[in-house]
């Protein structure tokens, strides 16, 4: 580095140090009582990373156990508790809050040109609720764990399980209220806080995606909350709501549970689609193809996503007629999803494409989401589902959506906005390497599981016939690769916080409003309130 460059860097550093949200207060108290959406986003980032590591450890133990056909590492009981811990932590403490509460919290006000979310105190309260929920779930796990699976199916969870079900329910309930408050805040913010000139069809697709997600959070989560309350009542008072022996109906529980938990899949993947829609145009140097269709597709996924829950009960005794309707609706939700994949591809067409780390993660997202989505169609088909239900095929399918889709996109977003969030550049070479390792490790882990499931390996078993061992060993080897891949960003991103090159305001030459302020931004985001005069994605230097 020449000395002139160093002087320039130091000067930039000096300028940001004086004005950024990061330097607005250095005490622990200033962080724990902050109302700045950017700081709350970082509080979320740290806490969900911790829970991701915990959930990952549970996954590692599961894969280790499955390396041999015999159940020799842990007992069947412990195995049940491990996959329950993995599911509960990854769904409610990592995936649901991941992109909305971290990237969404940080970026939504910046992208619409606002000074903060509409209700900053509520935003902080939401983080504390999340933390309280996480603590209670952790308590349940430390006290001996839960063995019901993350789905808490009755009557096992209410009448037969001897584990800490009610405690875990209480924790999930708290995180649910945290989600509702975040969703409420996002909805009101998008409706009331847009900068002058920021019409609905000038919103970046990331904002559209988080807006649609917020609608689902606000309308689906309360149903889960009350369902868990009813479950707790049945368990505590030993009365029949869902237990058939006492005049209840287990299918009733499944209807109520999946009325939340299927839309929850879209809570997890819609924000990921939003991230992809920001990154792909930037590195193809072209406006996103079919902006309005992309926005409508987001809303369509959110709406139709509410009407497909019954495909989880094709073999649970639901009527065949209901099954046919839910099957049809499940096929329909694939249409807007496909529109999005086609439009991302069309955006790339004749673009001037470069492949920095965020783009590699995002392209990985598009490919893996497509595989996960197409295998979802297998499962939406009534007859085929009879063969595939409750097998590893299902496990592979939803991991392609949630890990291959959401986690890849989350990491892509973290890299893309890292300069904006921290004011530092990460190491590009390490970033690309990690993206490739994660992509390879992911496929090695989960593709064999499609084959296992098709061959008849049921999910949630801790021992299996020997002919499945080869595929299980491949999958476990993939899990090790994946673990290395996930540890890499923790290392080089942390390193960049101290040693990274100071980031300019707009290192990617991107067009969003968030890139027009300093990196990192000042406490109230913009020195001057922005006025918006054009739509997003005004990239003009790509080919035609």
């Amino acid at each position, binding site marked *: 580095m020449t000395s002139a460059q160093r002087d320039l860097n130091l000067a930039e550093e000096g300028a940001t140090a004086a004005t950024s949200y990061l330097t607005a207060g250095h005490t622990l108290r200033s962080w724990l009582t902050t109302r700045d959406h950017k700081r709350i986003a970082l509080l979320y980032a740290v806490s969900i990373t911790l829970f991701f590591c915990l959930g990952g450890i549970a996954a590692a133990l599961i894969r280790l156990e499955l390396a041999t056909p015999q159940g020799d590492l842990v007992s069947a009981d412990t195995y049940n508790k491990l996959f329950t811990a993995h599911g509960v932590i990854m769904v409610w403490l990592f995936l649901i809050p991941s992109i909305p509460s971290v990237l969404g919290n940080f970026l939504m006000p910046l992208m619409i040109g606002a000074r903060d979310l509409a209700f900053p105190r509520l935003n902080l309260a939401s983080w504390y609720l999340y933390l309280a929920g996480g603590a209670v779930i952790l308590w349940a796990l430390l006290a001996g764990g839960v063995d019901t699976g993350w789905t808490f199916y009755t009557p096992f969870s209410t009448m037969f399980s001897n584990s800490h079900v009610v405690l875990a329910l209480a924790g999930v309930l708290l995180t649910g209220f945290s989600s509702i408050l975040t969703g409420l805040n996002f909805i009101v913010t998008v*409706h*009331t806080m847009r900068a002058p000139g920021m019409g609905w069809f000038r919103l970046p697709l990331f904002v559209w995606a988080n807006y649609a997600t917020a609608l689902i959070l606000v309308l689906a989560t309360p149903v889960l909350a009350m369902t868990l309350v009813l479950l707790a009542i049945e368990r505590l008072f030993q009365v029949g*709501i869902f237990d058939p022996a006492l005049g209840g109906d287990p299918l*009733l529980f499944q209807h109520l549970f999946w009325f939340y938990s299927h839309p929850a899949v879209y809570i997890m993947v819609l924000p990921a689609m939003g991230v992809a829609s920001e990154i792909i145009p930037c590195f193809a140097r072209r406006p996103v193809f079919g902006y309005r269709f992309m926005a409508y597709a987001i809303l369509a996924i959110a709406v139709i996503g509410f009407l497909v829950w019954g495909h989880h009960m094709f073999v649970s005794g639901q009527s065949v007629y209901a099954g046919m309707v839910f099957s049809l609706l499940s096929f329909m939700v694939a249409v807007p999803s496909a529109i999005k994949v086609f439009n991302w591809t069309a955006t790339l067409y004749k673009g001037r494409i470069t492949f920095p780390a965020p783009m590699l993660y995002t392209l990985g997202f598009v490919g893996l989401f497509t595989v996960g989505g197409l295998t979802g169609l297998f499962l939406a088909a009534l007859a085929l589902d009879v063969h595939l239900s409750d097998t590893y095929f299902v496990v592979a399918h939803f991991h392609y959506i949630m890990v291959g889709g959401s986690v890849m996109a989350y990491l892509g977003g973290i890299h893309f906005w890292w300069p904006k969030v921290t004011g530092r550049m990460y190491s590009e070479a390490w970033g690309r390497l990690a993206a490739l390792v994660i992509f390879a490790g992911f496929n090695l882990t989960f593709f064999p599981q499609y084959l296992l499931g098709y061959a008849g390996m049921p999910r949630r078993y801790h021992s299996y016939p020997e002919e499945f061992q080869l595929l299980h060993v491949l999958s476990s080897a993939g899990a090790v690769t994946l673990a290395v891949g996930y540890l890499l960003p923790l290392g080089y991103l942390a390193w960049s916080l101290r040693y990274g090159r100071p980031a300019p305001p707009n290192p990617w030459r991107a067009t969003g409003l968030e890139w027009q302020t300093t990196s990192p931004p000042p406490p109230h985001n913009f020195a001057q309130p922005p006025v918006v005069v054009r739509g997003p994605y005004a990239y003009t230097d790509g080919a035609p």
Partner: protein
Amino acid sequence: MNTGPATHAAHTPPAPQFATRAQQEFAGSFGMWVFIASELLFFGPLLFGYLYLRLHFPQGCAAASRHTDFWLGTANTAVLLTSSLLMALAGQAAQAGLRRRAAGLLAASAALGLAFLAIKGWEYHAEFNEHLFPGVGFRPEAGGVAQQWPGMQLFFILYFAMTGVHALHLSAGILACLWLALGLRRAAPAGLPDSAVELAGLYWHFVDLVWIFLYPLLYLVGRAGG
């Protein structure tokens, strides 16, 4: 939903994240509407469970609902409707800048809310004594003869869950009313903005409206059926 020029609104500066006071007030009332939408879905599983009960156990549902206390339920409906009237008047008074009057009306609404809870508590007490509380002690009787329709217990599970969750919401509303009534006794810049009464009113009417649905479901419909 009032965004018109309230007496004090023009003089109070908006919170730092807002550009104008009007924007802040719109965000507040819009947020309350979104919250109410969410609350509606919160009651959803209970109503869905009730639908399931009526479809699968019509006779048990009818037999069980004859055990609820029609007169106490009706009295409570009257109490709650009156409290909503007072709440609406409190909103009008606050809008007109009559803060003391609004505080008084809020306190009166809270008092009626407490009366509702007292009557409800009395009703619970009687039901407990009649062995209508779900669990091992559940033994409904009619004219000294034990009744054993399937679905009777589910009715009472839903009855206690619905009215219990409603009572929790009402308790939150009562606390909000009392807190607002205290806050309104001070002048506007230091005390609460007038628009806070509108928000509390929206919430209160929502809780009232939930009861308007629970009352016929639990006290009336089953009685009328065979």
